[in-house]
């Protein structure tokens, strides 16, 4: 069944140029500049998605029950979504915290409060700086012994 489904992005590409779409489906290699633009676009997409989700309290209706892999609100706010510290903390969450009962509870509590906390930090930069210091401390604990 899935083979018969036409995805919206492909229909859009067909509207752009049918010949170009058929070349890409035949696995012709994309121009290097286009690949670079696509990477940049994906990153901007991710940043916008993170921002919109943050502004809406941290969750969207459809994915509340889905496995979440990229949330780390306070760290993302303090350092950036793709910053090594944020990535380390995500790994710590996935590999350490989520494997323990206490850790899972902590992660749930964190997701409950962190979007609102980030909102407050945006209004009170002092709290933002304190959060950054706290995240740095947690990061050093999380990566201790690596």
């Amino acid at each position, binding site marked *: 069944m899935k083979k018969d489904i036409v995805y919206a992005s492909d*229909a859009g590409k067909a*509207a752009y140029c049918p010949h170009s779409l058929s070349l890409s489906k035949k696995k*012709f290699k994309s*121009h290097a500049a*286009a690949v670079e*633009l696509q990477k940049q*676009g994906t990153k*901007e997409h991710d940043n916008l998605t993170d921002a919109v989700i943050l502004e809406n309290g941290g969750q969207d209706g459809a*994915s509340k029950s889905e496995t979440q892999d990229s949330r780390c609100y306070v760290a993302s706010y303090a350092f950036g979504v793709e910053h090594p510290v944020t990535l380390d903390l995500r790994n710590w969450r996935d590999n350490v915290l989520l494997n323990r009962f206490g850790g899972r509870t902590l992660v749930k509590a964190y997701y409950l409060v962190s979007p609102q906390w980030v909102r407050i930090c945006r209004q009170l930069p002092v709290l933002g700086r304190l959060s950054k210091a706290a995240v740095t401390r*947690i990061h050093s604990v999380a990566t201790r012994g690596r």
Partner: protein
Amino acid sequence: MFVYLLMLFVVFILLFVLFVFRESPPSRGGSLGVEGELLYADQGRNSKTFISKKYGVGAKPDFLIRLKNGKVALVEYKSRDNGNVYESDIVQAKVSALAARDTYPVEVVFIKTKRRLQEIPLPKSNDALYKEVELYVMYARLANKGKMLYEYTDNLNQCATCSMRTHCQR
């Protein structure tokens, strides 16, 4: 263990601060420029793919928003620098809306670029919406089946930025 206790303590302090400083929900227009309740955001592999079996189309729209007037809007983001909205963006958004309509009654789509937010009203009937994109869905279906298409864009300006320009047989 000590770290967990410390972090739990911090969380409780945060909860207390949030309780004290709780506020009314902020404006939801924000980064997207479309105010309303976020129903869905495409967050990658784990996000739901909407599929309409009747029309054989599927999509992961960027965002679905319930607007303040109760209507459901679909938002597609295009990050290109010139901020223009092209026919291909509109077709993609319409096909996404058609796919999502099995789950949400999408009535309007917005295409957001760096410089503008274009609203595109949709026909109420799914059949009418499909008619508007049928040609491109058909092209995409043929391409998916491995058929080489020799239909080309009329807009030669597009060729300069086409990712397949080095292989084009025009």
